[in-house]
C-alpha cells in the first residue's frame, strides 16, 4: 500500500473487513449487470446475425401463394414498379419416409432458386446443390437432416401427389425462409417430423402437375419501394390465378417468430436487472449506514484533524465504487459468458449458419453506470450525513434508540408474546422502511422463482387444453385440394377408422371498419366430437347455425364482440365478399381463427362445396396401420398424429425449461442470500452488545439466536406470500406482453411452482441463518462488560 493516500488505505482495509457482506452485494450487482448484458447483447447478436444472413441470401420482402399460374404471369409480376427480383416457384406438400424411422414425416418440397440473384438463396452447409440435370436429388434443410441423421448420399422417399419417388440427398442447406421452421398449425417446431426439401424445377413440376406453371412466388423489392403498393398490385395480378393474398416479412412465419423472440427478450430485458440493482441499492444502504454509524468517532477525529466534508464523502463513495467495480467485473464476465452460451443455443434453435456474438462496449458500460447510479442512490443519504456530521457531536455516542410498543401489542396480543417475541416485533416496527425493504427484497427473490414457473405451467396447461380438451381426433388429415364428400365416405370405409368429421379451411380477410386480419375461416360439423371448440370459460361450445365464432384474441384485435357484424373477403375461388354476424368468442391459445358450421359455409360459398381435410378417430393400437394406408392416398397432403405431437412437444419443452429454471434459481438464490445474509449480519453487528449481555445473564446460544434470527425468519415468512403475489403480477404482465397472433401464454401458475419459490427462499434464508448462528457462538462476552456501544 506504499504511496497510497491514508484515506485510501482506510477504505481498502474497510472493504476487506466487510468482505463477506461486500461480496454478497457485489454478487447481487453482478447478477444485475450479467442479466443486463445477457439480454441486450443477445438481442444485438441476434439482430446482427439475422441482418447479415438475410443480406447474403437475398431474403425476400414479399411472399404470395396461389393456386396455379402460367410462368408468363411471372413476367407481369416483374413489371410491377418497385419489384427488383422475382422467383416463381412450385411448392408441394409431401409425405416423407425416412428409412429406419417408422413415424409419419411431412415436408415441403420447393423448387431451387432459379438464378444466383433470385431471392431466398440457400446457404450450403454440407455436400452440394443438385446439379441442373439431376431429377431425383434434393437439398434438405439442416435442422431436419440433423434430427434424422441424414447426410449427403442418403436417400428417402417422398410421396408427391400420390406418386412415391426415391430422392437422394445432394446437400444440406440453410434458408432465410426457414430460420425458424415450424409446420403450419403447430405450436413448436418438430425437426424430426417436418422437413423442407429443394429440387430442380423440371422433375418437381412434372410430379406435381405444374408444367410451365407456378403456385408460389417470392419478391425482392427495390430499395425504397413501398411493400403495400407492391402487394396491392401483386394481389390484383394473382386474383385471377387463385392468389391467397401476398404478405410481407412481418407475416412470414419464420421472420415473425424471430421478431417475436426478440420482442420477448426485450420485454424481459429490464425486469430482472432492475430487481437486482434495486436490491443492491438497498443492501448498500443498510451496510454503508451501519459502517458510518460505527465510524462516527473516526469521522469526528478525521474532521478534527482538518479533513473536509468532501474528502469524507468521497472516502465512502470510493468504498461503494469498489464494491460496484468488483460486481461489475464479475457481472460483465459472467454476462458475456452466459450470453455467448445463449447465442449458441439460439444459433442452434434458429438455423443460422453462424452466430456473430456482439457485446457492444456501450451495453457493458450502461450496465456498469446503471449499477453505480443505483449504488450511489442507495448510499448518498448516509454518506452526506457522515460528511455533515459536526466533529464535536460525532465524539459522543448516539442516544439510545427509542422503542415503542407495537400496534399488535396494544391491540391486546401482548400477553401472548414472550419477551423475545416482543423484541422481535419492536425491532421490525422501529425501522418500518428498512423492514419493508428487507421483506420486499426477499419477496422479489421469491417472485423471480414464481415467475420462472410460468412457462412450464402455462405450456402444460396449453397442452392439456389443446390436446385433451379440444382435439380428440387421433389423426388430422389435410387434402392437397378440396375434395368432395366422397372423400369422407372413403375415409370412413378404412378399416379401424371409427370416426370421421370433415373440415374445411378457406383463406379470408376479416374486416371491421378500418381493422382487418388475414386468417383461415374454418368450417366444422356442429356438435362434432373430434375437435371441440371451447368458450372463454373452457366449456364446450356448439357452432351456431349462422355466424362465426372468433378466437378471443382475434375478436379483440378486430374490435368486435358477439352480436357485431364482420366483413369477410374470401381470398380464394370466386373471391366472394359477404357480411356475417359474430356469434361468439372462443378460447384458443394458439392462432387467431374464425369458425363456422360447414353447412353455413357451403351456403355462402355455393360454387365450391368441397372439404379440405378431416379429423379421424381410430381403434386403439391401429394408428400406424391407418397412417400407412393414408400415406398411399394421392389426395392426402399431410397427417398429424395427436400422440406424436404431444410427445415431441414435451421433449422440446423439457430441456429448454430446465436451463431457464436453473438460471432463474441461481439469480433468485443470489438475491435471497444477499438480502437475508446482509440484514441478519447487520442486525448481529447492531445488536452484538445486547445479545452478549443476554448471554451473560444466562440465556443460551439458541435463545439469543431466536431473538436475532426470529426477526429475519418472520420477515422471510411474510415475504413468501408477498413474493407469490408479486410473481403473479410479473407473470400477468409477461403473459400480456407476449400475447401475439401466434400464441398467447395463459396465466397459469401451479402449486409446485409456488412451493419451489418458497423452498428457494427458505433454503437461502437457512444458509444465511446457519452462518450467522455460528458467528453468534463466537460473541465476546467479556468485551460487553467494558465497551459501550
Amino acid at each position, binding site marked *: 500500500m506504499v504511496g497510497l493516500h491514508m484515506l485510501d488505505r482506510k477504505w481498502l482495509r474497510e472493504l476487506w473487513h466487510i468482505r463477506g457482506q461486500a461480496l454478497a452485494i457485489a454478487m447481487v450487482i453482478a447478477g444485475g449487470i450479467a442479466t443486463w448484458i445477457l439480454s441486450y447483447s443477445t438481442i444485438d447478436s441476434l439482430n446482427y446475425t439475422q441482418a447479415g444472413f438475410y443480406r447474403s441470401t437475398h431474403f425476400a420482402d414479399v411472399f404470395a401463394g396461389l393456386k396455379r399460374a402460367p410462368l408468363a404471369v411471372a413476367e407481369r409480376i416483374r413489371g410491377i414498379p418497385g419489384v427488383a427480383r422475382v422467383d416463381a416457384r412450385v411448392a408441394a406438400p409431401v409425405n416423407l419416409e425416412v428409412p429406419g424411422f417408422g413415424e409419419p414425416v411431412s415436408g415441403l418440397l420447393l423448387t431451387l432458386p432459379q438464378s444466383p440473384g433470385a431471392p431466398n438463396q440457400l446457404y450450403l452447409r454440407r455436400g452440394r446443390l443438385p446439379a441442373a440435370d439431376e431429377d431425383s436429388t434434393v437439398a434438405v434443410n439442416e435442422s431436419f437432416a440433423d434430427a434424422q441423421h441424414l447426410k449427403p448420399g442418403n436417400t428417402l422417399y417422398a410421396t408427391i401427389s400420390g406418386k412415391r419417388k426415391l430422392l437422394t440427398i445432394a446437400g444440406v442447406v440453410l434458408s432465410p425462409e426457414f430460420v425458424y421452421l415450424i409446420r403450419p398449425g403447430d405450436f413448436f417446431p418438430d425437426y424430426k417430423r417436418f422437413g423442407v426439401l429443394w429440387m430442380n424445377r423440371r422433375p418437381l413440376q412434372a410430379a406435381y402437375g405444374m408444367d410451365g406453371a407456378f403456385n408460389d412466388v417470392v419478391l425482392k423489392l427495390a430499395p425504397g419501394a413501398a411493400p403495400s403498393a407492391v402487394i396491392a398490385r401483386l394481389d390484383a395480378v394473382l386474383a385471377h390465378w387463385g392468389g391467397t393474398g401476398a404478405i410481407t416479412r412481418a407475416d412470414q412465419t419464420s421472420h415473425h417468430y424471430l421478431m417475436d423472440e426478440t420482442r420477448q427478450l426485450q420485454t424481459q430485458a429490464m425486469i430482472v436487472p432492475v430487481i437486482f440493482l434495486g436490491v443492491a441499492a438497498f443492501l448498500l444502504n443498510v451496510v454503508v449506514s451501519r459502517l458510518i454509524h460505527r465510524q462516527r468517532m473516526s469521522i469526528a477525529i478525521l474532521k478534527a484533524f482538518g479533513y473536509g466534508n468532501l474528502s469524507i464523502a468521497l472516502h465512502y463513495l470510493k468504498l461503494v465504487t469498489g464494491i460496484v467495480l468488483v460486481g461489475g467485473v464479475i457481472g460483465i464476465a459472467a454476462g458475456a459468458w452466459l450470453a455467448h452460451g445463449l447465442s449458441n443455443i439460439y444459433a442452434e434453435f434458429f438455423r443460422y449458419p453462424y452466430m456473430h456474438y456482439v457485446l457492444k462496449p456501450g451495453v457493458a458500460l450502461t450496465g456498469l453506470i446503471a449499477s453505480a447510479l443505483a449504488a450511489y442512490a442507495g448510499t448518498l443519504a448516509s454518506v452526506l450525513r457522515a460528511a455533515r456530521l459536526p466533529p464535536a457531536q460525532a465524539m459522543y455516542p448516539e*442516544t*439510545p*434508540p*427509542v*422503542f*415503542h410498543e407495537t400496534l399488535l401489542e396494544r391491540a391486546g396480543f401482548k400477553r401472548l408474546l*414472550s*419477551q*423475545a417475541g*416482543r*423484541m422481535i416485533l*419492536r*425491532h421490525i416496527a*422501529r425501522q418500518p422502511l428498512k423492514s419493508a425493504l428487507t421483506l420486499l427484497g426477499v419477496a422479489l427473490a421469491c417472485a423471480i422463482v414464481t415467475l420462472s414457473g410460468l412457462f412450464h405451467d402455462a405450456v402444460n396447461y396449453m397442452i392439456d387444453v389443446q390436446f385433451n380438451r379440444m382435439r380428440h381426433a387421433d389423426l388430422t388429415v389435410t387434402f392437397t385440394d378440396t375434395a368432395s364428400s366422397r372423400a369422407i365416405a372413403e375415409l370412413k370405409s378404412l378399416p379401424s377408422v371409427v370416426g370421421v368429421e370433415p373440415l374445411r379451411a378457406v383463406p379470408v380477410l376479416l374486416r371491421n371498419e378500418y381493422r382487418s386480419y388475414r386468417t383461415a375461416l374454418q368450417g366444422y360439423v356442429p356438435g362434432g366430437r373430434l375437435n371441440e371448440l371451447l368458450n372463454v370459460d373452457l366449456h364446450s361450445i356448439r357452432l351456431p347455425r349462422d355466424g362465426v365464432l372468433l378466437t378471443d384474441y382475434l375478436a379483440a384485435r378486430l374490435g368486435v364482440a358477439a352480436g357485431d357484424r364482420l366483413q369477410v373477403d374470401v381470398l380464394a375461388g370466386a373471391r366472394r365478399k359477404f357480411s356475417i354476424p359474430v356469434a361468439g368468442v372462443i378460447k384458443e391459445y394458439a392462432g387467431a381463427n374464425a369458425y363456422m358450421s360447414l353447412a353455413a359455409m357451403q351456403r355462402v360459398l355455393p360454387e365450391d362445396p368441397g372439404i379440405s381435410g378431416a379429423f379421424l378417430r381410430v381403434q386403439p393400437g391401429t394408428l400406424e396401420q391407418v397412417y400407412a394406408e393414408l400415406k398411399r392416398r394421392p389426395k392426402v397432403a399431410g397427417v398429424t398424429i395427436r400422440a406424436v405431437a404431444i410427445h415431441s412437444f414435451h421433449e422440446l419443452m423439457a430441456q429448454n425449461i430446465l436451463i431457464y429454471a436453473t438460471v432463474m434459481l441461481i439469480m433468485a438464490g443470489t438475491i435471497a442470500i444477499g438480502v437475508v445474509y446482509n440484514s441478519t449480519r447487520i442486525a448481529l453487528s447492531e445488536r452484538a*452488545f*445486547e445479545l452478549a*449481555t*443476554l*448471554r*451473560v*445473564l*444466562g*440465556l*443460551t*446460544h439458541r*435463545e439469543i439466536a431466536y431473538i436475532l434470527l426470529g426477526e429475519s425468519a418472520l420477515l422471510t415468512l411474510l415475504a413468501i406470500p408477498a413474493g407469490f403475489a408479486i410473481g403473479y403480477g410479473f407473470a400477468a404482465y409477461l403473459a400480456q406482453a407476449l400475447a401475439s397472433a401466434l400464441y398467447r401464454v395463459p396465466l397459469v401458475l401451479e402449486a409446485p411452482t409456488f412451493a419451489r419459490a418458497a423452498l428457494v427462499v427458505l433454503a437461502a434464508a437457512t444458509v444465511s441463518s446457519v452462518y450467522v448462528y455460528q458467528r453468534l457462538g463466537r460473541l465476546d*462476552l*467479556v468485551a*460487553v*462488560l*467494558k465497551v*459501550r456501544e
Partner: protein
Amino acid sequence: MVFRTRGLCKTYVVGEVRIEALRGVDLELYAGELVVLLGASGSGKSTLLNILGGLDTPTAGEVHYFEHDLGHADDRELTRFRREHVGFVFQFYNLIASLTARENVAIVTEIASRPLTPERALALVGLTGRADHFPSQLSGGEQQRVAIARAIAKNPDVLLCDEPTGALDSQTGLLVLEALDRVNHELGTTTVVITHNVVIAGMADRVIHLSDGRITGIKRNLERRPVQELKW
C-alpha cells in the same frame, strides 16, 4: 464458602503482546457477605470477576463454586451456571432498549427456576412507578437500578457488579448502592462489587485490594457503614 480460587492465573495474548492479567490469586468468598474488590484500572479486578462469573476461564489455577469446577467447565456448563446462580450488574447498565423496565426483568425471570416477580424486584430498587417505561425514558440511575432488579430477580446466589456507579454522578450512585445494600440485607445474596472508588469500600464486609494481578491486601470492616454516610 461460595467461591474458592487457588493460584488463579490468566494470560491474554493480544497480537504479539502478552498480558498477564492475574498472577496467582488465592481467594475465598463466603455466603451472604458483601465484598468490594478495589484496584486501579489494569489491576486484574475485572478479569477476576469475569472468571468468577463464568464468562471466562483461567489459564492456570483452580476456581470452584461450591463443589463445581468452573476452571474446566465448557460453554454449556458455564451458561447453566450463569443462568441458575449468578446475577450481573454492568457499568453501562446494558438494558435491552426494546424492552420496558418490567420486561427487562422478565426476560431473566422467564428462564429462572425460582424467581421473584418482576414487580417485586423493581419494588426492591424503588422503581415500581417506572415499570412500563422504556430505557430511553429513564435516567442513568434509574436504568442502573432496573439492571440491579434484573440481576436479583432470578434470586441468584451471587451478585457480581462491575463498576455499578462508574457512569453515574455521586448522588445517583448512592441510590444505586443503597439498592445493592438492601438486596444484600433482605435476600442475603453474596455480593461482589468492583470499583476503583475507595469510598465505596466502607459499605463492604470485606475489602480486597488488587494490584498487578495479585491480591495485595484483604481488610475486614468491623462494621459496614450505612450507604447514606458515604461521600465522594
